[in-house]
């Protein structure tokens, strides 16, 4: 173990309370779960995990806090608390980043970027607190208006790939619109959220407004999705679990749901691309960042035949220059995958790809490093549209590259998927840029770039990639409910 990792471990002992954060206190759970450092395969620590009883306690706390004062808190007060929280996140950026890297395995500088994004998200939504507008609608003989009210207790179930970013994507819009929240973090990456929880208390939020727990999806997550006092659930994760959440909502209290699910996003590069090196840079970033563990990963690259050979050559060179190694090492581009199970799953897809007849052009093997879950960035070529590695989400550093000739045909191939989360187009021609982005069935279309996700533009899926849009003003609709009020002025019967 190197100096940086042991320093990180030293830090966390003083920084993280491993209880369930309910009502501003860290309390015991039903059982404990060990969280593993994916760079070494070793246990970092155990954390308290919630069973259905603790989920109930958390929801009741959020319910009490909502009705007890948060619902009637002034927008200015909410904004003040959120800005204070953002200040504290900025103050503790290093602690949070180290915890994130330790628990998730992402390179430290990426984790630092994530933490800065988190403080930006909080500030963006803090600015909305006092700008939640209804409408006055002109109708005869009446004063008609709408009020955009908070829903009440919101539940959030978040994944392990961007632990603290995923947390804030749910917490910030929920809180700014006046809701209280119970977040169930992934049991694989509970630590940064627990540090964040301490900041919530330090910022001065009343007990029960923000509750952060962890636990297994099928226990704590299911409990939250079914809870009769939880009025809304926001979920980010796999399509299969998304289905279970919708079913749980249907069977319990028909709570409102938003789902952020998987993807198999196409990245289309036309031969009139302005700058091939830039296209290569963005394409590599679009799949190999975060070790490929992104729902919007551009995991299918379609290159027009005229530039195919040159693209593949440049792409390969750039990929090979990226170091796979310890995430605390400044020169590392790609850290470990999240777990042994997940690494095995990715490796099995590589086997499947080979068996299906695709060419493993680059990579394809595990990397031995200190007992961690490392693998080589992997490129497949000679792929056919019906191959499983072309259709199924691998969620790892594995990309397929295809040649195409004809625009209509590549759009058809790009859209031939149950997913619809994102897509990219590289071209210098304005007509092509706009007509192709119009034709792609995806919630985010990037032109001459990939993976740019910001707090002020909407993010979400078409088709089975999900329901609802996160971030930006669009997100407010997920956390408000509309009441229409009609006051009769002069109509007598």
């Amino acid at each position, binding site marked *: 173990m190197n100096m940086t990792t042991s320093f990180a471990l030293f830090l966390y002992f003083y920084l993280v309370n491993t209880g369930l954060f309910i009502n501003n206190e860290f309390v015991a759970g039903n059982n404990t779960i060990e969280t593993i450092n994916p760079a070494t395969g070793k246990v970092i620590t155990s954390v308290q995990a919630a069973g259905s009883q603790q989920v109930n306690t958390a929801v009741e706390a959020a319910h009490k806090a909502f009705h007890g004062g948060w619902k009637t808190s002034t927008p200015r007060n909410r904004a003040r608390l959120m800005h204070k929280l953002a200040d504290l996140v900025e103050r503790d950026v290093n602690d949070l980043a180290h915890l994130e890297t330790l628990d998730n395995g992402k390179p430290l500088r990426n984790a630092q970027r994530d933490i800065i994004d988190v403080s930006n998200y909080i500030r963006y939504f803090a600015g909305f607190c006092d700008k939640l507008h209804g409408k006055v609608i002109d109708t005869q003989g*009446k004063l008609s208006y709408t009020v955009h009210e908070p829903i009440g207790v919101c539940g959030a179930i978040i994944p392990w790939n961007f632990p603290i970013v995923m947390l804030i994507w749910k917490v910030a819009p929920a809180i700014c619109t006046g809701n209280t929240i119970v977040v169930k973090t992934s049991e694989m990456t509970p630590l940064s959220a627990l540090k964040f929880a301490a900041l919530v208390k330090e910022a001065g939020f009343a007990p029960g407004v923000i509750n952060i727990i962890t636990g297994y999806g099928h226990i704590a997550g299911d409990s939250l999705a079914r809870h009769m006092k939880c009025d809304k659930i926001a979920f980010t994760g796999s399509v299969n679990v998304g289905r279970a*959440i919708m079913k749980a909502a249907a069977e319990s209290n028909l709570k409102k749901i938003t789902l952020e699910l998987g993807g198999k996003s196409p990245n289309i590069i036309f031969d009139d691309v302005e700058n091939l090196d830039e296209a290569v840079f963005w394409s590599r970033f679009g799949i190999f960042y975060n070790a490929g563990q992104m729902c919007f990963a551009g995991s299918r690259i379609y290159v027009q035949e005229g530039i195919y050979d040159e693209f593949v050559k440049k792409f390969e060179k750039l990929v090979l220059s990226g170091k796979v190694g310890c995430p605390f090492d400044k020169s590392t581009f790609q850290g470990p995958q999240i777990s042994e199970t997940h690494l095995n799953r990715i490796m099995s897809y590589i086997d499947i790809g080979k068996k299906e007849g695709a060419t493993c052009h680059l990579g394809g093997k595990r990397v031995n490093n200190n007992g961690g879950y490392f693998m080589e960035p992997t490129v497949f070529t000679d792929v056919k549209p019906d191959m499983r590695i072309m259709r199924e989400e691998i969620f790892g550093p594995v990309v397929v590259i295809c040649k195409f000739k004809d625009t209509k045909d590549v759009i058809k191939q790009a859209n031939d998927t149950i997913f619809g989360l994102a897509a990219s187009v590289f071209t210098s021609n304005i007509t092509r840029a706009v007509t192709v*982005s*119009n034709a792609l069935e995806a919630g985010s279309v990037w032109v001459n770039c990939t993976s740019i996700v910001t707090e002020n533009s909407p993010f979400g899926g078409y088709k089975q990639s999900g*329901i609802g849009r996160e971030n930006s003003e669009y997100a407010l609709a997920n956390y408000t*409910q509309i009441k229409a*009020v009609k006051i009769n002025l002069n109509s007598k019967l």
Partner: protein
Amino acid sequence: MVQPDLQTVRLSNGKEITVHTHLFINNEFVPGHGPLIETINPATEEVICSVHSADEQDVNAAVNAAATCFKDTWRKVAPAEKARLINKLADLMERDRDELAILDALDNGKAFTVARDVDITDSIACYRYFAGWADKIHGKTIDTTFDKMCYTRHEALGVVGAVIPWNYPTMMAAWKFAPALAAGNCIVMKTSEITPLPAYKFAALVKEAGFPAGVVNIITGYGHTTGNYLSGHPLVSKMAFTGSTATGRKVMESSSTSNLKKLQLELGGKSAQIVCADADLDQAAEWACGGIFNNHGQSCNAGSRILVHESVHDQFLELFIKHTKAMIKIGDPFEEDTFQGPQISKAQFDKILNYIEIGKKEGAVVSYGGKRWGNKGYYIEPTVFTNCHNQMRIMREEIFGPVVAIAKFKTIEEAIDIANDSDYGLAGSVYTTNLDTAITVTNEIKTGTMWVNCFDVFDQSTPFGGYKQSGFGKELGKYSLQEYTQVKVVKILRSSKI
């Protein structure tokens, strides 16, 4: 067995009309492969005629017709042209207003005059309102960083599935068709097998107006078969459902096991009308009367609980019964002065009478009505229960008939708690002359619509939809457009060499 599409039906006044009985798919009336279903006249308990219903093959044909039309035709039609077609449809509905009203009255049992002056009139207004939105579906440009051009598009979903109930056949269809079409979608609608006839007349007008084949498809059938096939179809991008909470759960479950289609649910209600001591009692009584007895109590937003301040309870009750007697003339739907026709079916009729028995057993007092009316047709007297409290089943469960439960309250806080003590949250009202009371109560009650000194006042431009287990999503108003569009964000990065 295939019967011809056009059937002749005789009305109670001797007049004869012709109705369509086939499925409307791709602008053609086709018999389909499902069983023939009899539709009953609730005023006479007799069969009007049989209609063809859709089986899985037919649902598939309808969805595919819509999908093909969307891809090849409808999405390329300019918004202004879409608006023109929807307005033309409204024109034809105005031309044939009486015929549409006759079908609503015949199949549903509501008074012809009500069907004509409320249902059909409001439906026409709904189409005209949304026609105006067709060319005003705006995305945004969003300033992110200097080197990017970022904008959103609010795109149509593609194929929308809709399942509508029997209580307002033409109007429930309008609430789904109008925003769906304005937003650029193609639709497959399953009408209630209890009231299939009005929508088929509407279908003929869709074709006459000039809509391309496949934009509007109308089928009927049972919920657990036809409705189920539609909810589970992989090419349907969204289901809009109005009906019971129990079936709403099934629609949601069906989406979870099929393609996670977007959902909009408009479910049941047990809305509370709160009468304060300072209300104009005579006005409150008259509004409250319509609030429960309109449409024979068969409204999801019916004000079926009335909470009256104890100091004015007896006076209010006297006025309420006075207005009930004056307003509610029960009779044949085609008689000019009928206000209340029959309930929709034997099953509903039995259910409502059973709830009246339950109310009596629970200790509530029948202060008016409480019995069947006449001996033919599913008629029930408008029924008033007093001496109620909020734990009674008649105060908690949706009866969906002309039965109201009245309870007393001491303080406004108590009234608010009682009103909110319900799994439902669709509508509600407060009668008061005091500004503070009006604002406090409308803020505190957890429902999607709050009326002040009125009830059942609808406009095309204001949103309607429930809190809690009354559903999610909004119908009518600009808000409904977001139910029928999906957002795409496009981010264009300028090359770094510039």
